[in-house]
């Protein structure tokens, strides 16, 4: 195990995969100097054919990813902030997510789209969105939401080696957080959730950036005699329903935590699965802790008001768990 920062782990994965397969190429706006740090050093190592700054033209970049993939490349497209996915949304929703079916399976699209999501740093409404649920709904896209450096590296490698378009959602706010990363070569499979913390009384499903406050909330609850299990889905498409259902079958209670806006969110989808396949095992209402249906405000106190926190999570958990549990 080595201690790496989230961004370093992503950078390591890019270096390793580009070394491993000459067909891996990276492009996007300002990927050369890399203000996020995730693509830093790739230009010096691999040269301008394999990593290149593009003009600002998201609508074209997402379409180019499709064409370059068709021409035999494994494309890594960096879209910077997830709000800019909207600018390039046409080719994402109308081409990338549909072309394989439309062509009767002829077209294979090994595309990885990286983009940072989430708020918490006063970046305001146009630089703080969490678009997971939009991508989930489009049908033909995988969605990876690594919460730790180890998963960031392992899931990115899986995405780059994969045969389908994958959105690799970077937790913008956590580029600097460190964690243990396995030495040597490894990948993290899609569709396998991680039981990050075992517990008996309730299940907290925490997506991406929400894992940290969820674990903190679990600690808080511990002190009140409540044993919370914390699950990190790691990928939303494919989604490891079994692990979530198994946990809730044990605890009978669930809180789903998601930095997306509440309406038609990833959280609502997981809650809906519990209300269907998990119904027989539920002992209490399924709670969602999400961003209310608002754009992210700028002022720190206003942002804090709507940002899902340890307190919100603990409160939701307590509302469905008898403290004597």
């Amino acid at each position, binding site marked *: 195990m080595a201690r790496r920062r989230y961004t370093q782990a992503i950078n390591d994965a890019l270096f390793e995969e580009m070394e491993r397969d000459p067909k891996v190429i990276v492009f996007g706006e300002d990927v050369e100097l890399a203000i996020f740090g995730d693509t830093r050093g790739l230009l010096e190592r691999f040269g301008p*054919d394999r990593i290149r700054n593009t003009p600002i033209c998201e609508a074209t970049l997402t379409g*180019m990813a*499709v*064409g370059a993939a068709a021409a*035999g490349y494994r494309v890594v497209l960096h879209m910077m902030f997830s709000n800019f996915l909207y600018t390039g949304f046409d080719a994402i929703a109308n081409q990338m997510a549909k072309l394989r079916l439309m*062509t*009767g399976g*002829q077209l294979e699209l090994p595309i990885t789209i990286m983009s940072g999501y989430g708020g918490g740093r006063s970046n305001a409404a146009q630089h703080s969105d969490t678009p997971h649920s939009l991508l989930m709904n489009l049908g033909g896209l995988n969605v990876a939401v690594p919460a730790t450096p180890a998963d960031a590296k392992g899931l990115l490698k899986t995405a780059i080696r994969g045969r389908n378009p994958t959105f690799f959602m970077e937790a913008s706010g956590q580029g600097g957080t460190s964690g243990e990363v396995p030495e040597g070569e490894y990948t993290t499979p899609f569709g396998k959730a991680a039981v990050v913390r075992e517990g008996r009384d309730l299940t907290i499903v925490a997506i991406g950036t929400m894992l940290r406050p969820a674990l903190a909330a679990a600690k808080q609850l511990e002190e009140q005699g409540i044993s919370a299990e914390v699950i990190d889905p790691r990928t939303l498409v494919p989604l490891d329903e079994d692990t979530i259902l198994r946990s809730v079958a044990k605890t009978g209670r669930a809180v789903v935590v998601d930095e997306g806006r509440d309406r038609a969110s990833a959280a609502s989808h997981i809650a809906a699965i519990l209300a269907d396949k998990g119904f027989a095992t539920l002992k209490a209402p399924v709670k969602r802790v999400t961003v209310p249906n608002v754009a992210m405000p700028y002022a720190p106190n206003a942002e804090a008001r709507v940002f899902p926190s340890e307190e919100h999570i603990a409160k939701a958990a307590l509302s469905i768990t008898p403290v004597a549990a």
Partner: protein
Amino acid sequence: MSQPTEVAGPTPAQALALYERMLLIRRMEEKLSADSAAGVLPGAVHLYIGQEAVAAGVCMQLKETDWITSTHRGHGHFLGKGGDPNAMMAEIWGKKTGICKGMGGSMHVADLTKGILGANGIVGGGLAISVGAAFGEKLSGAGHVAVCFFGDGASNQGVFMECLNVSTLWKLPLVFVCEHNHFSEFTRAEQVTAGNIVDRAKAFGIHTAVVDGNDVEAVWKATGDALARARRGEGPCFIEAETYRIQGHMEFEKELLAGGAYRNQQEIDSWVARDPIARWGGKLIESGVATPAKLEEISTRVAGAVADAVSFSERSEPADPELVFDLMFAGQRP
């Protein structure tokens, strides 16, 4: 820009092949028009009748390994690039033997083995895809080229300018082919398109050509020049081909427009008089490349090919609904 390549006209064999390809496109679509009127097609079809010289003149200059992206009006490009008539007909009929297994239909016919990246239901949708393909080919250095077909209406989509910018900067082996047929749906180009489309390309300093899109030889030559430049590594070129859509924007449009009209019969007739196939046939006879009998023979062969496509489709099973779940992802259930 650099000096033009001296492009030879088509050889007699090529000239006849161009004629046969145009006629194949025409006859296939006449059949589809009849099927549509008879109400036997599952979905809508946007016919290419009148524009065949563009698809044939461009595509028959291409190698199988070159790429094309197409539009919602894509039958001509598909057949022009060597797509299988049987597989196309079956696709439009929604059969399992269709080129896309019946999952795509008229607006999405594609054949990657022939470099056909597909018709596209999104106006302008093919542009960026062709830039990506050209980028890939530039990187692999195999000398392959990408060609992007799009309409006058699509030239108003901003991605057109974005693609001109990227492909010029990166000197990509790409040919933009704008088919100016005077309409976007039921709107005249003048109402929605400011200035001349070719000037938008000129702004990037790339080589451009404006040709009579109903003159297959002119299209063929302009394409030959553009491809030579692209293969020489000079970057993208732009060709604007003026032509006209004889059929409606889509079959059945009269019923949908409930009497609303956007052009008059006189205008249509004036373009029918410039029919690219009849013109080319006449030229072949004049120049002694073909006899009327020879053209008759071609016409018979084409009729046979269409008949084959029809009976192939008729004999084919309907699409397999369960395939939907296998085809969304590679090696993964949706």
